[in-house]
């Protein structure tokens, strides 16, 4: 009887121990993702939308896990600014010790973070910063899945010249690293093709009233396109001011406003009729017929009761790219970096990814052009 009790006790202990060890192993097989996103300040909409895409991707991945790994995440507010971003990065690296980081959205902040993550040898996937310096020369730990400012600027200038037959342009841009960089590339490409830049108008992020700028633009003569590089808040005011001044199509004028991925989905609804005829790059086409995109759209709608934006889609793809490298055998920061560098054929909802030697995605199928219709819906222009 005593022996039986001993056997039962030993078995029970063994069972507890095996569950505990098994539990510990399961616990150990975790890929920790750190997210450096702006959650305060003028770029806060990036962070909130990124978060939705991330949550959806993690929910899907953690249902079945990848190669036995589950994924966890910690968010830090990096505020689109160098000092808060570098502090957020240090906090994340010190306290959470992530295997991989996603973020930041703003170029200044990303450039400030880069030496910190390089020193910590933790890879970072960026999907929102367009400044060339991020991947030229970049560093071995920073990867960008979106086209840089040159790729976007050259493409949008070429499409404006060739597809819209634009010959004159006025550049409007915020005085930031990305704003100036994007405008410069457009100018160089457009002028090389034979177009003429009538004015280059930069403004600080503190400008709230664009009436005087719109009035000045209205006095510049015949304008075909107005490439505009700014965040949503100022973008809305510019579009409405240009429409009120009768410059752009939304105000029954002749000019077409051109925009980039900086603006979130829903911009048109906020801008109203003024946005009619606006042509802009989005990096996610919700009308894309691929099953992957259809599934993403329906899952997103089911979870958040709204249509996904390109920011949602970008964040979703960043997580799915991490899952892809884990599927290919990556298990820690160094192997994730190495596998990311070898990525050749990842296909996400925003497009495909193949990194060059500087860790820049070279695929152009992530650029989709949309034209805003009078009912504020989009027409996909299928230029790429």
């Amino acid at each position: 009887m005593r022996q039986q009790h001993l056997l039962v006790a030993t078995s029970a202990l063994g069972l507890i121990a095996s569950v505990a060890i098994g539990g510990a192993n399961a616990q150990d097989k975790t890929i920790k993702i750190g997210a450096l996103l702006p959650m305060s300040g003028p770029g806060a909409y990036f962070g909130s939308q990124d978060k939705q895409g991330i949550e959806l991707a993690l929910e899907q991945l953690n249902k079945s896990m990848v190669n036995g790994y589950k994924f966890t995440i910690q968010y830090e507010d990096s505020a689109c600014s160098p000092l808060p971003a570098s502090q957020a990065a240090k906090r994340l690296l010190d306290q959470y010790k992530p295997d991989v980081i996603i973020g930041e959205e703003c170029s200044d902040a990303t450039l400030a973070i880069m030496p910190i993550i390089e020193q910590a040898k933790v890879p970072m996937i960026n999907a929102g910063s367009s400044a060339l310096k991020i991947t030229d020369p970049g560093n071995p730990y920073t990867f960008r899945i979106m086209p840089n400012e040159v790729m976007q600027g050259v493409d949008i200038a070429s499409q404006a010249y060739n597809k819209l037959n634009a010959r004159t342009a006025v550049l409007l841009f915020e005085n930031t690293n990305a704003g100036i960089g994007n405008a410069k590339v457009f100018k160089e490409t457009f002028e090389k093709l034979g177009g003429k830049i009538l004015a280059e108008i930069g403004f600080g992020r503190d400008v709230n009233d664009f009436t005087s700028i719109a009035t000045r633009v209205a006095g510049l003569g015949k304008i075909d396109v107005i490439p505009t590089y700014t965040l949503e808040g100022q973008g809305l005011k510019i579009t409405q001011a240009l429409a009120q001044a009768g410059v752009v199509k939304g105000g029954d004028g002749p000019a077409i406003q051109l925009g980039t991925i900086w603006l979130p989905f829903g911009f048109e609804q906020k801008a109203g009729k003024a946005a009619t005829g606006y042509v802009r790059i989005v990096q996610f086409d919700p009308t894309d017929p691929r099953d992957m995109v259809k599934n993403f759209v329906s899952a997103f709608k089911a979870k958040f009761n709204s249509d996904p934006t390109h920011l949602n889609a970008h964040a979703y793809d960043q997580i799915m790219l991490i899952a892809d490298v884990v599927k290919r055998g990556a298990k820690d920061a160094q192997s994730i970096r190495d596998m990311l560098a070898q990525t050749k054929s990842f296909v996400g909802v925003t497009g495909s990814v193949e990194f060059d030697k500087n860790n820049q995605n070279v695929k152009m199928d992530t650029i989709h052009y949309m034209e805003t219709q009078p009912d504020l819906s989009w027409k996909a222009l299928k230029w790429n």
Partner: protein
Amino acid sequence: MSDAAISRAVHPWWASRRLGFLAAALVIAALPMMLTGNYWQTNLTICAINVLLALGLDFILGYAGQLNLGQSAFYGLGAYVSTLLITRLGVPFWAAFAAGVAFAGLAGMILATFAVRLRGHYLAIASLGFAVITYQILLNWINLTQGPLGIYAIPPPPAITIPGLPAISFRNPVALFYLVAGVTLLVYFILDQLVRSPIGETLTAIREDEVSAASLGINTALWKVFAFGVGAAVGGAAGCFYATFVGTLVPDAFFITESFTILAMVIVGGMGTLIGPVFGAVLLTLLPEVLRGVGDLRLMVYGAVLTLVVLFMPGGLVQAARVVGARLGLSR
């Protein structure tokens, strides 16, 4: 009985300045050992930089009574002058540091020379205007400052080599903290000597009643220019350290809102005292970081705390400490 003798008789032993400085040095030495990890250690450096900024403003506002909202400009001038000298002309760090401090101090004196007749709100507007102009220059003079394109990879101060000891590299966050905190303590000591000297009494007289001070033969304009020069130079020193600490310089770091943040540090800590701005700067630097655990509510909680302090402790943390001290019978 001499002033010193009176002071010794009135102040209890723990309030002795020498012991205070010794305790401050010991706290500075111990902090990086208590707060380990790169994140907290770099937060300490930010605290030290902000203490410098707050001390500079407090000297102008708290002692000379001049409502200066242009401290962000002096901060930016110190940062850009030293960085441009280092990155463009290859000037050694400490020479560039001295130039940054001197340039900011000179800018403060020039501003004060023109604004010397203004008081209160009018001076606030004039100094705010100076901050706006400086920001616009930093933003738009791209050929010189790189404007919004930013200056990146700014090196830390060069390592110090002491014979017989390993070189002290300021790439190490602890060493950099000791450097910045050491300079901050030195600045505190100098300002403490100044405010306890006849110069401090002169400035206080101007703050309390400028007309009466002038009637006693005090050249109020000259002393206001002096106060601006000293406060701006200290702000410039903070800027020099900021650039080398962050390694990235963009004009947005010196936007006018920074002036209000520095003002909040002085008011929350307790202006007109030197220790108050130290507490204010440390609190307002660390609070947002401590509150990161609160998530999206972080800035709301931060704002609420700030409002409560100003509402219920109009004399700042120093006043609160005095009240608590009096209740505990620790002071007279």
